[in-house]
């Protein structure tokens, strides 16, 4: 039998059901692998080795949880010194939902401080390395979650996506990353970054796994007033043996390709890989048409007003009184955004910045609504380049912000997006982004699934 840790979540569940191995053996295999490889990757900030915490992983499916998601009595730092030593007195709703499904927390994964960044380099606890080339960034901000999945240090992971923080590291590390519709998954217990943009989603070894995890973590929650939509249902047990909508053919499906996502700034080799992937969708029967998202060029500017403005309000809670340390421990990127947001919201500037950005947001959202009137999904690159060198952009915040250019629009519009491995450029993974209508994760996953089944990219693993 293949190594236990190389199995997807769906395969793992099936193997457990058929008693090919026990949960104890499963956890032991993952813990051993973490012990062997984590120190060189820095994917985990905390490993639940001793099982001394309030819940033990040894009888559960080992999942990795991004360190911005609260786990009762398990250290939760958000990658910040401000929360050094913090132990949440409660579990996030998503963690509770996973526990109910027999999933446990094997560890907490590294991330950019308070989920602000694009490279994984803003963690106060050291950078996470890209397993395909350790001199490269893993992407961010769910850097540790993406690396843990890519290197089989967990069965799957949870991350958060405020401007691309699941899709971009998934793309740069060669795993599947799902950003959910805004309001699909409860954010109770997620340490807030920008409240009108924050979403929780998964990083998984397959698209099928992403659908399964979504069916577990979605659904209304009285603790998040924005989360009232019904649970995503495509129950796994029905699809292991019985093909369902997820596995339906994409024959005749309309796939839009936004011309604005293929212009200047897109690396030519990445473009080639993405174009091949789009060809593949066509071969699978999809009808590919060009669409336009005319306000895309302004989305990033609007985002970098709205995001820091909301951050400046959310970060006000860190005063060192009820939990954590004082504001002198806040790291450089977080400070930069608090400054930018406070400035944008300060007296005399509100109309020029925040109000104008909120109107541009409306136009970005309407662009998608118009495009989705004639297509089922929109596809393109996740990131304009593959993983770049560690340190390359740390001194130029604007350059770093531009790395999010293809992902932030989905957060402004609240729509779901998936990153699926679709090839390599100079040995580094490239992800195909599949965007869908608000609440239509199903079609997004269906297209991702069809593509994944027709290709072998996800089976490629980095050599450690």
């Amino acid at each position, binding site marked *: 039998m293949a190594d236990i840790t190389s199995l997807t979540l769906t395969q793992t569940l099936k193997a457990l059901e058929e008693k090919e191995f026990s949960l104890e053996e499963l956890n032991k295999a993952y813990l051993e692998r973490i012990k062997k490889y984590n120190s060189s990757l820095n994917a985990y900030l905390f490993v639940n080795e001793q099982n001394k915490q309030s819940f033990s992983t040894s009888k559960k499916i080992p999942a990795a949880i991004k360190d911005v998601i609260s786990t009762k009595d398990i250290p939760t730092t958000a990658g910040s010194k401000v929360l050094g030593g913090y132990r949440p007195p409660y579990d996030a709703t998503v963690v509770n939902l996973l526990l109910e499904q027999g999933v446990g927390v094997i560890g907490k994964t590294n991330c950019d401080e308070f989920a602000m960044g694009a490279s994984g380099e803003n963690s106060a606890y050291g950078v996470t390395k890209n397993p395909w080339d350790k001199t490269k960034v893993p992407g961010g901000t769910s850097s540790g979650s993406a690396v843990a999945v890519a290197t089989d240090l967990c069965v799957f992971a949870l991350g958060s996506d405020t401007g691309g923080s699941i899709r971009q590291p998934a793309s740069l590390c060669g795993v599947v990353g799902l950003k959910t519709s805004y309001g699909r998954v409860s954010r109770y217990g997620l340490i807030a970054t920008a409240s009108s943009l924050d979403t929780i989603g998964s990083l998984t070894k397959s698209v099928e796994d992403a659908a399964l995890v979504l069916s577990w973590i979605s659904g209304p929650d009285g603790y998040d007033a924005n989360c009232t939509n019904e649970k995503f249902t495509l129950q796994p047990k029905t699809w292991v043996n019985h093909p369902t909508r997820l596995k339906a053919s994409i024959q005749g499906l309309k796939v839009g390709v936004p011309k604005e996502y293929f212009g200047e700034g897109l690396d030519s080799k990445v473009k080639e890989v993405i174009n091949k992937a789009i060809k593949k969708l066509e071969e699978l029967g999809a009808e590919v048409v060009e669409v336009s998202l005319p306000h895309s060029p302004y989305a990033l500017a609007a985002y970098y007003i709205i995001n820091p403005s909301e951050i400046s309000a959310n970060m006000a809670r860190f005063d060192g009184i009820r939990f954590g340390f004082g504001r002198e421990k806040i790291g450089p990127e977080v400070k930069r955004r608090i400054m930018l947001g406070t400035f944008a919201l300060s007296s005399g500037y509100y109309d020029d910045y925040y109000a104008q950005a909120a109107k541009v947001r409306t*136009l970005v959202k309407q662009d998608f609504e118009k495009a989705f009137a004639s297509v089922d999904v929109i596809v393109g690159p996740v990131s304009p380049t593959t993983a770049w060198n560690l340190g390359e952009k740390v001194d130029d915040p604007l350059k770093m912000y531009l790395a999010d250019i293809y992902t932030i629009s989905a957060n402004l519009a609240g729509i779901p997006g998936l990153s699926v491995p679709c090839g390599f450029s100079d040995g580094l993974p490239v992800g195909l982004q599949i965007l869908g209508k608000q609440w239509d994760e199903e079609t997004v996953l269906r297209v991702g699934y069809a593509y994944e089944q027709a290709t072998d990219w996800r089976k490629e693993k980095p050599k450690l």
Partner: protein
Amino acid sequence: MKLTKDQVRLGRDKVKHVAKLANLPLTPEEEEKYSEQLSKILDYIDQLNSVDTKGVEPTFNVSGLSNVMRKDESLASLTQEEALQNPSQKQEGFFVTKRVIGEENG
């Protein structure tokens, strides 16, 4: 690249003022650095002004929901012990804060 005086959108004084509003302790080096970096970022953001937004309603929330209510009934919450699990300073079952009334803010 060093910005010329005209290019600095957010001078040191302004940076100091904003930092005070945000209750953010900054070193002189940070004030200098943020003055430059934020000026450059604001230059980029300026392109927002070239978008015609006349008659466009702002979007603050994309869930399409408003006034979400729940039944007015008490639910379980953290115990006092749990709520006091994390502060660096506590006293007789309370959080300790700086004095805000009376004498000079200490």
